[in-house]
């Protein structure tokens, strides 16, 4: 039986892009919180 797979572009579109975007906005949010934490 023939095996099928996603092309490279499909990998990027289907999961690499949303994963990278998620990491980016979460890190931005964490950095923002750290930056704004008042000094003790």
């Amino acid at each position, binding site marked *: 039986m023939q095996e099928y797979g*996603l092309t490279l572009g499909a990998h990027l*579109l289907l999961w690499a892009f949303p994963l990278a975007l998620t990491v980016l906005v979460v890190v931005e949010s964490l950095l923002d919180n750290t930056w704004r934490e008042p000094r003790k």
Partner: protein
Amino acid sequence: MTPLEPNVLATVAAVMVAYLGILLFIGWRAARRTHGGEDFHLAGRSLGAWAAGISSTASSESGWVTLGAVGMTFTYGVSGLWYAPGCLLGYLVNLYVVAPRLRKISETQGSVTLTDVLTRRWGDPRNVLRVTATTIILVCMMGYVAAQLTAAGKAFSSSLGLEGRGGYVLGVVIGAAVIILVTSLGGFRAVAWTDLFQGLLVAAALIALPLYAISRLGGFGALIQGLGAIDPHLLSAGGDRVGPALWGFVIGQLGIGLGYPGMPHVITRYMATRNDREVQRMQLIAMMWGVVVFYGAGLVGLAGRVILPGLADGEQALMALALELVHPVLAGLLLAAVISAILSTVSSQLLVAASAVSYDVVEETLGGARDDRRSLILGRWTVAVVGLIGIGVALMEVRLVFWFVLFAWSGLGAAFAPLILLALSRRGVNRHGALAAMLTGVGVTVAWKLGRDAAESPEIFARVWWITLIAAVAILLVGHLTHAFENADRIGVVAAATITVLAWLLVQRWGLDSLYELVPAFFSAGFAAIVVSAVTGERD
């Protein structure tokens, strides 16, 4: 879809009734906290991160995300997913560039609507900008409201088992009555809270259903094998497109995101956010909602293609999968999610249309209802009247209105998105440039779309010159007769007409017809704003 069995239908209908009951309860709670005009139009600038974030995204997506986006991947496979990066890039610009600046500027100005932001930013002594912006918003929003009510009516009638023309009418009336009641009583706050509830329902549905469907298939590998066996093109990012058609498709899909900063029902949420801290929290919440919903919808379409290969209409894949795979109570919740996606947009657009009439026209242009209490009453009555007109248009299925809807997203996006970005980030644009940008945005959108259709219908192609000329002369005439136009405004109108005709020639001569109209219209409008401002010389 096949007709539902009576016991399934009864369960689904019970879930629907409960869902509508929750909307009414939220509307009643919000009404008790709504005491004046700013409360009604902007929730007294008191929204927290969750309400602002989810309501801004839920109201922007409409039934498109649970129907159209699902249909895209059902039909085209992975290549149908290009809308997701397009929309998410639009979210990035909106949330990280527009939201923080717009909240600040609107608070400083005391502005209540998008039109208000633009007119106070550049000054509008003769109400030229306000009348132009309000007209564009009202036409687009009324068309949208009627089209969404039609979709809601169809979804309700099929969910509640109401058949025939009578079932459709009842479906439209039930959906519209609940939304009009909730919006007119609770105003912006009710719309934002019901959007939050409905947005979370949509997200939950688009997480749970694809995961369950893929697990039923035997995992992600089985999904890929199933798609490949149907057609190997379903597994590639370009599908079966090649060359200019592929690039036109990809750029067009990415270009969808250009419209987001120009959507009044979306960006007013940012104006209503409580403070900068809530804006920052909102950014993460809204982005995550977008990722979950867009990719969830895409996966539903892919799974649906394998599980239900015989389904004639891919846009029905979510509803068909729900009824095929899960218990009727859960299916009812999933169908409620489909209707939620529609109604959350209807309520937001209804409120924007009503605010355009009651606030921008009656209060600001005609100088009526200065008292806060009267402003609230006026807002409520306007929502009711605008909603009833929407019901009338939806029931009569006025063709002209649905023709306008084809232009609504790109028209609004091109008319307002470049202007909002320029208003928030750049000096050197004035009110005459702003007028030129709005007219150019709408003009190029219409010309490009007609130009694209012209390949099949040369008759329309031949009329674009005349449509543009007549529209420009009519606008100049109205401006002249009402003594509203300055000379610089006339330059703006002529520039908009010229760019519109040039765009139409471009789409014809250079074979750019595969490019989505919002892309050229957006950049043409920005160009018009900058050039007309430079020519007319008055800087802000």
